[in-house]
């Protein structure tokens, strides 16, 4: 019973975060929404494991938390430097003013 309540709450929260994801005026609103959506997904997977009586789902939740963090940092790094790994060059002050 209590896990049903928590599942419904997390579902409603995910829908609200999705509204912000599609409406967000800037890029950083969307990145924040994606990160928050990932955290909600981790919680939802854990709670649904308890709801269905199969707590093995927690391994998947842990994996999802790892991927979520790395993905957020990768998106931010890409939009900062326009590259993920190679050819990183930090913009100087004159380049940034243009």
């Amino acid at each position: 019973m209590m896990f049903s309540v928590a599942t419904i709450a997390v579902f409603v929260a995910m829908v609200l975060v999705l509204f912000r994801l599609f409406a967000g005026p800037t890029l950083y609103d969307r990145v924040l929404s994606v990160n928050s959506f990932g955290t909600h997904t981790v919680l939802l997977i854990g709670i649904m494991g308890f709801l269905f009586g199969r707590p093995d789902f927690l391994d998947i939740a842990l994996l999802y938390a790892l991927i979520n963090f790395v993905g957020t940092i990768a998106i931010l790094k890409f939009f900062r430097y326009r590259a993920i790994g190679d050819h990183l060059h930090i913009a100087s002050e004159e380049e940034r003013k243009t």
Partner: protein
Amino acid sequence: MSMTENIVTGLSWFFILSGSFFVIVGAFGTWRFPDFWSRLHAASITDSAGMILLLVGMCLQAGFTLVTVKLIIIGIFLFITGPTSTHAVANAALVSGLRPEEAEGLRGVEPKPLVNSEPDSKI
């Protein structure tokens, strides 16, 4: 049902209900707040309060098993990475030039640039 089971069930009801409350409050703030910086504050509520309370409630339901260990590992990981990624988003927005709206007569302090434009003369 014994006394201890009653107490544990009541405590986990309390933790899970309050965790659900904080999760919904954080998501509602992410949806409704007017400014990126205030949305950042609202999204952090889910990362800290809601996540910790929900995981503690699940730990109380699981008892002393391997499931509790996994839940604690997930909790520690989210507790470290949640504020880190929120800080990364805020830092990227600040570097890219996004500024909070200033109130009438209240001037914010312009942050120092990350790249030092003047070369260090002491070298």
